[in-house]
């Protein structure tokens, strides 16, 4: 008697829980991130999370380009780097406020994307990938050879942070408190930026424009036969993707970058180009939420394994390989598809019961 009752309660509960749409799950996840600072983590943890959000945004922007339109770019660091540099340069040497330099560098990134997209998109497949790979390296060399305050190995040292220390000290906080609050404010700013941008990216990816982009990925000729100006849509994907990669770069320049320098190696190096690739494939390509999950998981894991410094890279790579072999479509995509399948199965079961 009690057993059947409990069973019924459990099954209704399971139905409710499994009915939670992925959208709500994502929202709850963001809510959780909002409340993390309540646990009073040290500024180091906050910083790690902040960088994870920046890379999540960066990876999501890559996913819009590659997961939707299928134009594989291995030079996405170009946009990250251009925005980080431009924003740091304008705000440090020309005294522009950060609130103006980031949108400006985002727009500049979109412009750069269109300018390099016009010649680049004439080549296809692996050739396009190789061409895109070259651009950040070229810019890297150019910046490396520039004289010191702007270029060189060190890049632009100490660009202004989002919230200057004085802002908090004037309001009666001590120095150490102000330093912590700086990080905390950046944490929230970047989290909200990620939240808003990922919603926009997701909506673009699932709009009719997104559908057209997938059609280009599937069969370019058939897409043309449907009357679609393929080049225009590819450029659009490039530009929107660059816009958000630029936002990630700008956010980086005035948070993590501002604690040391916006250096060419960090923002234009090969690793920066490869981060979004690894994170997106780990989480699930073409989903927008995949790269966010991927960036969050991989970046925090990477930091966690600092306890075993020598083995860190080995463990990290092993985990990636195991996950990709086990769930080739990506972890987040696998989970969401599983949830959808379960929901469908239950719906069919219920229909059968009614009959």
């Amino acid at each position, binding site marked *: 008697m009690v057993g059947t009752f409990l069973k019924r309660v459990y099954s209704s509960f399971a139905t409710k829980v499994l009915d939670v749409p992925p959208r709500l799950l994502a929202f709850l996840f963001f809510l959780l991130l909002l409340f993390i600072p309540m646990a009073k983590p040290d500024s180091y943890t906050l910083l790690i999370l902040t960088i994870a959000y920046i890379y999540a945004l960066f990876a999501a922007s890559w996913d819009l380009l590659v997961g939707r339109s299928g134009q594989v770019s291995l030079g996405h660091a170009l946009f990250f780097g251009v925005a980080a540099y431009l924003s740091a340069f304008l705000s440090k040497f020309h005294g522009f406020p950060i609130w103006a330099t980031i949108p400006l560098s985002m727009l500049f990134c979109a412009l750069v994307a269109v300018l390099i997209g016009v010649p680049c998109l004439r080549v296809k497949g692996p050739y396009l990938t190789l061409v895109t790979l070259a651009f950040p390296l070229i810019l890297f060399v150019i910046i490396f050879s520039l004289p010191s305050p702007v270029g060189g190995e060190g890049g632009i040292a100490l660009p202004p942070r989002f919230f200057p220390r004085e802002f908090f000290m004037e309001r009666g906080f001590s120095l150490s408190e102000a330093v912590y609050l700086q990080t905390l404010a950046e944490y929230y700013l970047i989290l909200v930026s990620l939240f808003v941008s990922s919603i926009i990216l997701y909506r673009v990816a699932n709009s*009719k424009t997104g*559908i*057209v982009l*997938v*059609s280009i*990925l*599937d*069969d370019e*000729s*058939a*897409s*043309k*036969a*449907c*009357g*679609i*100006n*393929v080049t225009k849509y590819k450029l659009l994907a490039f530009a929107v993707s660059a816009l958000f990669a630029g936002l990630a770069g700008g956010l980086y320049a005035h948070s993590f970058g501002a604690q040391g320098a916006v250096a060419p190696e960090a923002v234009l190096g090969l690793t920066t180009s490869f981060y979004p690739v690894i994170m997106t494939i780990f989480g699930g390509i073409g989903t927008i939420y995949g790269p966010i999950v991927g960036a969050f998981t991989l970046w925090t894991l990477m930091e966690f394994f600092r306890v075993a410094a020598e083995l860190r890279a080995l463990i990290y790579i092993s985990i990636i390989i195991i996950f990709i072999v086990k769930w080739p479509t990506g972890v987040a995509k696998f989970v969401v598809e599983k949830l959808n399948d379960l929901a469908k199965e239950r719906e069919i079961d219920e229909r059968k019961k009614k009959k």
Partner: protein
Amino acid sequence: MPLLEVENLTKRFGGLTAVNNVSFHVDEGDIVGLIGPNGAGKTTLFNLITGFLEPDSGTVRFKSEDITGLGPHKIVNKGIARTFQVVRPFRHLPAIANVIVACVSPRASKKLEWLKSPERKALDMLELVGLSEMMFESAGNLAHGDLKRLEMARALATEPDLLLLDEPFSGLNPIETDYLTKSIQRLHLDGYTMVIVEHKLHELMKLVRRVIVLHYGEKIAEGSPKEISLNKKVIEVYMGKGAT
């Protein structure tokens, strides 16, 4: 005033002349068959008309406007739609999204009825070809016959004035063939102008009013189905010398 005029069209691939000095025209409301043995240049001719290939010489005029050498998407937006010999669905997209792609093209969105969304129109197109029950099925899971119909829906969604069908009957079973024959007849009654490339002469001859025969890239005959079936040259090409 012919809808489509093809004049002295020539295309060479290296030493091979795939289409050699072909001229013909298609009138409004006409339904024309294009036949010939394998490698006769039928698909190449389609590719030249629709802009997927650029001709070496000759002109293509559509509604007395020169469209030679325009890009494929521009030609579609002028009003020429085509289907492919081998089906080319967007495999990652559900059936309805396949058609939505065509519905958001500039020409289709301009011709969209007032208060009608592209989604609604895509569904109407699927209904027209009898695929509306499969609307959420991923195109990668559809059977060959369904994909042929999907291709048709996609072409129709671009609001064409001229429809080029490349082997619409290939790989269809008798029931599907019958269904497609009826669909094409209905489209013809609705006023669509069509050019059909087909190997299944039995089905084609019932449908068309005029037949053009290509052989090694050259036009060797043109006329009504009856004339063509009695034409010595055509029989020679299909059956070999001495068949007559």
